[in-house]
């Protein structure tokens, strides 16, 4: 290899890169002295939750990556098989800490569908509001969180403050800050408190300001652009091959959104366009999420304007302590801030579910996709790529 003249002419030393065996696999001989194993996580500032990455590196380039999970396994799916349907609600919300409300909505929806229960219109509006508030608080962490991976920590602090204000609103409405158990079979647990709309608007105005500031901090910032444009590229042909959904698919030009494609609750009465980008790199995914943050603010304003002032919030259901859901199975889905989030539910006609299985976006994003994306990445970009997929380990190991 030629001697390097200066840093701008630097070329990776490919002579150290592993050759391929006849079967197409990389010939990685750890005793050759060319490779180093680097463990990122399970507890690492660049890891979203308890997950670890086993990286084999050559120089500062990743040649092989393996995702390891299991640090947070609590067996929720198994535990729910031994509980009454109503007892599953405090359990299921814990399957994804970032957005617990989708779990309670999907479980309630499954039970209602299998039992043939229609919920009142007011409850549908309130559920739509809660799901959008959940998306809002999640995006307030995720959008600036991407900048946080590049040491632009101030955005994270702004986001955490504003997220706390949204959690205050959740506390007013549901009594809980992180886990709410507000959505129950047949409807929801309560109406909006007096003055809630005004307080919501005050918080939304602050978030409007935050969006302007984040524009300067991230999208007009040369450091952020240099570190994200062209990095963490997802080929459009990978979308179906790897089961990529949500903002990660939309950033590659795939306008897929469960809210539009399979409208549920009141989404078909709301005016919104599915956001998308084309470049499919970290910058494009951040841009999609920023646009979704703006869209969520708008959707919440629309919901607050269109919501009826009064109405029933719960349809009659059998006594939940003796409720036997008719035999059957279903799959219901919703659009979380990370993409398609679904529950496959089986009832055998008894008081407890036969099987509840969560389909979370991280299951594919954080394992098969991430393991592929990290190959040839620089070790300094690993956490940035991972955060750009918005992974949530608890939903992998339910």
């Amino acid at each position: 290899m030629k001697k390097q003249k200066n840093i701008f002419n630097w070329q990776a030393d490919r002579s150290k890169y592993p050759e391929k065996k006849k079967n197409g696999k990389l010939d990685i001989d750890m005793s050759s002295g060319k490779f180093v194993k680097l463990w990122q996580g399970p507890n690492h500032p660049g890891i979203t939750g308890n997950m670890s990455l086993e990286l084999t590196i050559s120089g500062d380039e990743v040649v092989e990556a393996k995702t390891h999970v299991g640090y947070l396994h609590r067996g929720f799916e198994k535990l729910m098989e031994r509980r009454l349907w109503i007892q599953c609600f405090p359990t299921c919300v814990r399957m994804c800490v970032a957005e617990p409300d989708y779990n309670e909505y999907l479980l309630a929806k499954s039970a209602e569908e299998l039992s043939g229960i229609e919920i009142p219109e007011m409850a549908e509006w309130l559920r739509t509001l809660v799901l959008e508030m959940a998306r809002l608080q999640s995006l307030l962490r995720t959008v600036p969180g991407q900048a946080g991976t590049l040491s632009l920590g101030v955005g994270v602090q702004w986001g955490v403050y504003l997220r706390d204000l949204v959690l205050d609103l959740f506390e007013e409405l549901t009594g809980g800050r992180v886990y709410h158990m507000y959505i129950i079979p047949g409807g929801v647990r309560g109406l909006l408190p007096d003055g809630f709309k005004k307080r919501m608007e005050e918080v939304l105005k602050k978030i409007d300001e935050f969006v302007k500031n984040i524009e300067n901090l991230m999208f007009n910032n040369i450091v952020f652009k240099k570190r994200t444009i062209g990095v963490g590229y997802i080929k459009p042909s990978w979308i179906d091959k790897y089961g990529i959904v949500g903002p990660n698919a939309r950033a590659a030009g795939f306008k897929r959104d469960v809210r539009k494609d399979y409208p549920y609750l009141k989404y078909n009465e709301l005016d919104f366009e599915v956001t998308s980008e084309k470049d499919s790199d970290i910058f494009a995914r951040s841009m999609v999420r920023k646009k979704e943050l703006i869209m969520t603010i708008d959707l919440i304003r629309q919901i607050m304007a269109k919501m009826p002032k009064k109405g029933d919030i719960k349809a009659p259901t059998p006594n939940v302590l003796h409720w036997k859901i008719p035999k059957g199975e279903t799959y219901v889905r919703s659009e979380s801030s990370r993409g398609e989030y679904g529950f496959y539910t089986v009832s055998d006609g008894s008081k407890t579910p036969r099987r509840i299985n969560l389909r979370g976006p991280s299951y594919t994003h954080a394992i098969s996709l991430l393991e592929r994306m990290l190959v040839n990445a620089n070790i300094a970009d690993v956490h940035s790529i991972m955060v750009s997929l918005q992974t949530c380990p608890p939903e992998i190991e339910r």
Partner: protein
Amino acid sequence: MENIIKDIQNRFEVSDIVNQRDNITFVTCEKEKTIALITHMKKNLGFKHFVLMTAVDWIEDGLFQLTYILNNPKKKLDVAIRTFISRENATMETAHKLWKQVSTYQRELKEMFGIDFPGSPRVNESFILEGWNDIPPYRRDFQTKEYAEKTYFPRPGRKTNDPSEYMKKNMS
């Protein structure tokens, strides 16, 4: 949806057809024909999005139900394919060549239900559990409470009191 179901009914003799909603239908297929059916649906009927794959333990019948949910993103339709395999010889043909993420699902099913998928990449590597030496924990005959009591409780130095006895003692 009707045409799709007719097509797969003619080709693969699917049974127990349940139209759960307008856009999702559940069908049952024989074990030997299932992977061929999934391949046909992906390649010829536009079901390109693999939603999920999981198992249900019907211990009373001695069977595992494997459910594959496929989605057609253009037509916005879902088809869920059930297939039943014996609990005693729980083996199923692998589908990892069709979608990249399938091997992860199969690895988890091997660990949690003990269902083997010969030829699936890394299927024998531990996924969530490490050093597990009991029966696969998501099987219905695995008793969570018993396992927890045997493994984690009582810890040394920890005392258990009967609440009524404890109160009587402390109130007197």
